[in-house]
């Protein structure tokens, strides 16, 4: 059954014949899909290392790609000392991420340049929703015991309900690492499935905390189970682990995502988070997405950067393109 579906989906050039337009509804847990996963770390690392050497964008192409990167950004603040004030500042930056005169000077004044979402803790969801009213920018809440995900299960589910009620349209949850480390795929599936149901219409991003999963094979397995359980996005990290988003781990998740898509016909989004700080890095990830999945995965519906300091570097690079002079951070409004 599974194989038949896969072959149908693969009939032409590896691209699926039919992709469902709606959200990923999930799929009954297929343990064979998990067991079938083979990841060769050395080969993955080699591919990850060369993607950014096989492709590059220069001049106006680079500027345009960086503008697109801004629209793929979950502008994020997850600090213990966040206040309503700092969150409002962040939301203001989200509305106007690049100086208008810069956009004007590079012929991008009419482009819809605003971030994809603003990502905060539950306590600031209401603040952010208020600050972003009228912009269409959704608020994402990290939830379900973020970042360790080890608070009582009912509380984690309740937290999701609360954030959705407060106006969050996207919920970033963390999975229980021990389920992955112990190979308890049923438990992982049930957990993510329950979170997905708690989200209702809000979109679910499943954070795998890849830096704590030990192996790339575990990353792929956890990705597959999270997608089967109905995750709208799979996300690398909380930003709090010692190792966060890397290109090899992203490559593994993206390939697993493609595999899921080929098996089920459902598209899932991908979000690297933590460690993406420079414009160059952002371009590397975009190259990876374009090469492995195509332009459809360079839209906010299917790709996000989780980032707090990335925007600043992109602004400087765009000013460099506009003026030919190297820019300084203080020339750009802070969040």
């Amino acid at each position, binding site marked *: 059954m599974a194989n038949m579906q*896969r072959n149908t989906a693969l009939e032409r050039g590896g691209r699926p014949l039919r992709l469902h337009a709606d959200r990923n509804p999930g799929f009954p847990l297929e343990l064979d899909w998990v067991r079938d996963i*083979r990841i060769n770390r*050395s*080969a993955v690392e080699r591919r990850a290392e060369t993607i950014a050497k096989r492709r590059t964008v220069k001049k106006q192409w680079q500027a345009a790609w960086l503008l697109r990167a801004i629209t793929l950004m979950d502008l994020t603040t997850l600090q213990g000392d966040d206040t309503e004030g700092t969150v409002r500042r962040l939301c203001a930056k989200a509305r106007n991420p690049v100086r208008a005169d810069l956009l004007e000077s590079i012929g*991008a004044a009419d482009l819809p340049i605003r971030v994809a979402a603003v990502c905060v803790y539950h306590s600031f969801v209401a603040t952010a929703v208020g600050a972003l009213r009228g912009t269409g920018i959704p608020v994402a809440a990290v939830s379900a015991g973020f970042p360790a995900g080890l608070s009582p299960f009912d509380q984690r589910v309740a937290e999701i309900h609360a954030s959705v009620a407060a106006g969050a349209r996207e919920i970033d949850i963390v999975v229980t690492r021990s389920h992955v480390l112990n190979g308890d795929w049923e438990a992982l599936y049930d957990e993510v499935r329950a979170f997905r149901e708690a989200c209702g219409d809000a979109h679910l991003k499943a954070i795998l905390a890849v830096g704590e999963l030990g192996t790339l*094979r575990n990353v792929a397995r956890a990705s597959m189970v999270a997608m089967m359980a109905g995750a709208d996005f799979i996300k690398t990290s909380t930003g709090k682990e010692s190792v966060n988003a890397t290109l090899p781990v992203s490559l593994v998740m993206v*390939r697993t995502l493609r595999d899921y898509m080929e098996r089920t016909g459902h598209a899932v989004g991908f979000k690297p988070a933590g460690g993406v700080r420079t414009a160059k890095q952002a371009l590397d990830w975009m190259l990876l997405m374009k090469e492995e999945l195509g332009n459809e995965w360079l839209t906010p519906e299917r790709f996000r950067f989780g980032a707090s300091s990335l925007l600043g570097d992109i602004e400087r690079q765009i000013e460099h393109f506009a003026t030919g002079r190297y820019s300084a951070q203080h020339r750009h409004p802070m969040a």
Partner: protein
Amino acid sequence: MNVAEIFETLEYGPAPESPAAANAWLDAHDRRFGLFIGGEWREPSSGEYFDSVNPANRRTLAAIAQADAGDVDRAVKAARAALAPWRALGAHGRARYLYAIARHMQKHARMFAVLETMDNGKPIRESRDIDIPLVARHFYHHAGWAQIAGRELEGYEPVGVVGQIIPWNFPMLMLAWKIAPALAMGNTVVLKPAEYTSLTALRFAELCAEVGLPAGVVNIITGDGRTGEALVKHDDVDKIAFTGSTDVGRIIRVATAGSGKKLSLELGGKSPFIVFEDADLDSVVEGVVDAIWFNQGQVCCAGSRILVQEGIADRLVAKLRARMETLRVGDPLDKGIDIGAIVAPVQLEQIERLVEQGREEGATIWQPSWSCPEDGYFYPPTLCTEVSPAATIAQVEIFGPVVVLMTFRTPGEAVALANNTRYGLAASVWTENVNLALDIAPKVKAGTIWINCTNVFDAASGFGGYRESGFGREGGREGLFEYVKPSWESHEPAGTRRRGKSARAGAAADAKRSTKRGGTDGMPAIDRTAKLYIGGKQARPDQGYSTPVTSADGVFVGEVGEGNRKDVRNAVEAAHKAEGWARATAHNRAQVLFYLAENLAARADEFADRIAAMTGDRKAAAAEVDASVQRLFTYAAWADKWDGAVHRTPFRNVTLAMHEPVGVIGVICPDEQPLLGFISAVAPAIALGNRVVAVPSVTAPLAATDLYQVLDTSDVPGGVVNIITGPRTDLANVLASHDDIDGLWYFAHDGGGAEVERLSAGNMKRTWIVAGRDWADPLQGEGEEYLRHASEVKNIWVPYGE
């Protein structure tokens, strides 16, 4: 295209590497280059020049000198003149120069990379990230070898003047692979780059001058095949090192036959890329990209035959096709290009012709939907399915971005398909099962095996082929021996070496029938009949003729069978059937050799008498038997000590340099010291797992035929040692022209080695011609030199990490 548009389309756009510096360099030379001989630039004496063309835009880059035989002679003389002072400079001095070359390569890396891409058509990504860094690495690594060669290669000395001929697919990298080890070992060189791609070699000549390399140590002569031919045939060249096609390699083998020139050949390939059902398929796809769409597929070790387990074949094909759509062919100076230009129109035509032939023979030819630029010589990535081993495109080297795909059912069938080729350069094996990977690696006949990777190279790892992919290794410790020779050879030039006392020539026509026969107390001796020894059994010679053997003073000693080509055929078949000997444990082989020695010692007097009867010197005969016993001990000792190595290659992997037996080796034994000569040749071969077909001393063959019973009683499995007595030249030539023999050693000093080398070009079997050694001298008669000839070095790259 403006920012707003690109924001929507997310196209890549151009990312050109500037050719300005390379063009300025060409202009500074008026786009015309002479020959670099003796540290000076010279006009070619013919006055003839030819164009070097950028294959990506068909524009002429520069005029290149056509060197003729006179120019070649001047270059060889310059190298000869530079040899003595270069040797006298010493290890550390040579190390300093090689280090300086490495540093300069790095300092001028971009210039070399851009020039290489313009001249050859390969993507700048590859010349910048792969070729040129490997060049610098090669010189660094060999600067190190130069420094420590004195101790590490004690007892060896430089070969002398080396002629080197390199191909157009990796112009600078092949130059480095040739020049670095040659200089490190104290040789001087005359190098000829390929006619399509001379420019970086000429820039390198300048670099040699910049670092102050003594004049004549490196000479660069340009030209077409005529120049190469003049270099190959030059009398004062001590060694030829060639990388290129198997056809040209064969011509060089024939041309150098009997010249005494040392020879290493790195030739073509049709390397298998084996995918098992438990492989990481997405990584396999990228592996295929690196295997066959690297350097436009113009790679001798390209994984050009995908062998995939049947159950996953459809999935892999679908994934490959999807990936091929995203490859980019175009201006090789663009940093975002995967596949550049084919080097020349003649190469492009060959690719087109072979693909068309594949289509006619029933293959499904798949190419991406996009089309190639038309301003240069471009060809799209091509995947051929529905291909059988019988198809032309499954057998011949296409040397382009074209891969064929076939399926297999079991690991055994994968190996059979992998080895179903005349070539044996490299193989790639993809599986997540370490047991399977390490089972397959030794079974595939190829010099390099890449596990879950492909086309990775390093100076510390030896590279070279089995079978018709050539012989010799480049890189690693194993590669150094291509550029040295045992020092004792210089002190005792061939021909003046001690020769043992010979019995009379034993050809039937010459033999004087003598009535003198052995016997005691008036009773006649019981007739002893020495037949041939094939497959562990004594076999009558096919023709039914025997040859008398007489002593030095003409007394009839006995008769031996007169073997012919059919006997050789039978012996070779028996040797192949004894393939299990190669898989026997080294301990097991050591035990057999010790036992052989024990059983020979038990019959020492009998053998001494026999040898004395033929040679007339009982005392020398006794010493010879004793030396033979010792020699068997030597190789019993070595059998389980001829270790391989783990090379220090610079990424996370284990690079295993494994010693494997060559296979079936023909051994033409010396006439002198008939027992010791036989043992000296046969023992090292079988110690390492080879099977031999030996032609013993013609004048005193009974020393070998008497061994039959010793072999039988020593548990030597049938077929491991086969012995054919008879006319040496005929037998040697049959062995040399036998395409299922992997090596041939010619230890008789009757000049027959030349024909043997010539005939061996048929299947490029490894030949070793040794004339007139003092077999009693351990320095000459035993040791690592023999073991090296008895083994192939296979490098197995095993990346790891979960």
